[in-house]
């Protein structure tokens, strides 16, 4: 280190190393009930009509249930309702 240099400490912090486990992904979604969790943004409405069409035509999904988020992050109550009524969920996040 020259006289014109200084050593500083890095202010950035990272998360603890943890192992996250994803829910088991279905290999075949034919006939499954799908939930659409609408976050209210215009882009969700724009995309989801196309996604719904593709899921029916290409993958043969069964019933569709449309939900509206009651707040930005669905709480435990809404997640429990979703998991009880649907076999997988398309979740609207951001815009």
């Amino acid at each position: 280190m020259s006289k014109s240099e200084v050593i500083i400490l890095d202010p950035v912090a990272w998360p603890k190393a943890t192992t996250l486990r994803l829910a088991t992904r279905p290999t075949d979604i034919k006939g499954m009930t799908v939930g659409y969790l609408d976050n209210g943004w215009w882009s969700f409405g724009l995309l989801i009509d196309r996604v719904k069409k593709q899921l029916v035509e290409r993958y043969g999904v069964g019933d569709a249930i449309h939900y509206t988020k009651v707040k930005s992050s669905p709480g435990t109550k809404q997640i429990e309702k979703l998991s009880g009524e649907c076999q997988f969920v398309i979740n609207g996040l951001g815009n």
Partner: protein
Amino acid sequence: MLSSRRVTVSESADDLLERMDEWGWADGLPIVPPTEDRVEAFVGQVGRDPEEVIAEVAPRFGVATVEKLAINAVMAGCRPEYFPVILAAVEAIVEPSFNLNGIQCTTNPVAPLLIINGPIRGEIGINSKANALGQGCRANATIGRALRFVLLNIGGATPGTVDKATLGQPGKFTFCLGEDEEENPWEPLHVERGFSRQQSTVTVVGAAGTNNICAFGRDPDIILTIIAHSMTSMGCNNVFGDEAGEPLIILCPHHAGACGEAGLSKVDVKRTIWQRARIPLDVFPRHLQQEKLAQGRVVDGKVLLTPKPEDLMVVVAGGPGGCHTVTCPTFGDTIAATKPIRMGSR
């Protein structure tokens, strides 16, 4: 023993500013280099283990140790004696009901506003009087800035990628003031929230900006009418959102004094503003009319600002002689949190 990665940089202020810009560690303004001796002074101030974990800060959930918080506080230009306030503020922002994850990532301009109460205001020079939300006070300026650095460097809220604010607001540089308890005719905020008057505290509010309300005279009926009608903005989250939250009213000493002299309590002030801060339902777009009705937010054909008068927060601050109260709409889906400030071993 400090464990953070060491980085060698030029002592030149120009070069250091360039590195901050390149690495995204700061806010576009010059910083104080967080050297080991400076950081050690901050850790020593609170007498805590530098590895002690204070919080995990959303949305990245970076681990906020005493050491990492000290580094960010040094960078912001704090004095060591400010550091206990920053530790308490970080404990407050991670309260689940504060909804930091939403606040950090939203397109809304919301930023945590820090309200300092108790004896620490005098001890470290927190400004609760003239220009309390403006420039000129090192404690207010750098404590708020330190919290912003924590949100950035530990929470990971990089503007434009994680922090998706459409425009943001100046309060995202720094947003901190003290309550003027001495000019407050009622109990101060921290006492209202269950702390003793001698306990110093910090309260965090998810504030979406400031709205100046000019009301001349000393008639509380006129003052509160003007404040109430100035808070009824259809586009603020408190009104149009699903969650009304807690709109903040920072009464100037003139307005607070006028209400106090007239015999009004803080509860009276909240109730009067709440009763008058309503928007006719029929001016709302049709789909919002349906939402407000479904939320039970409509009384006598008018939309309530909040479901209950006690949802409003009232503090007192500002200089003498003026007639300018400030209100802060909030993110809506956020509840203010208050934490005690622990002064440490020194």
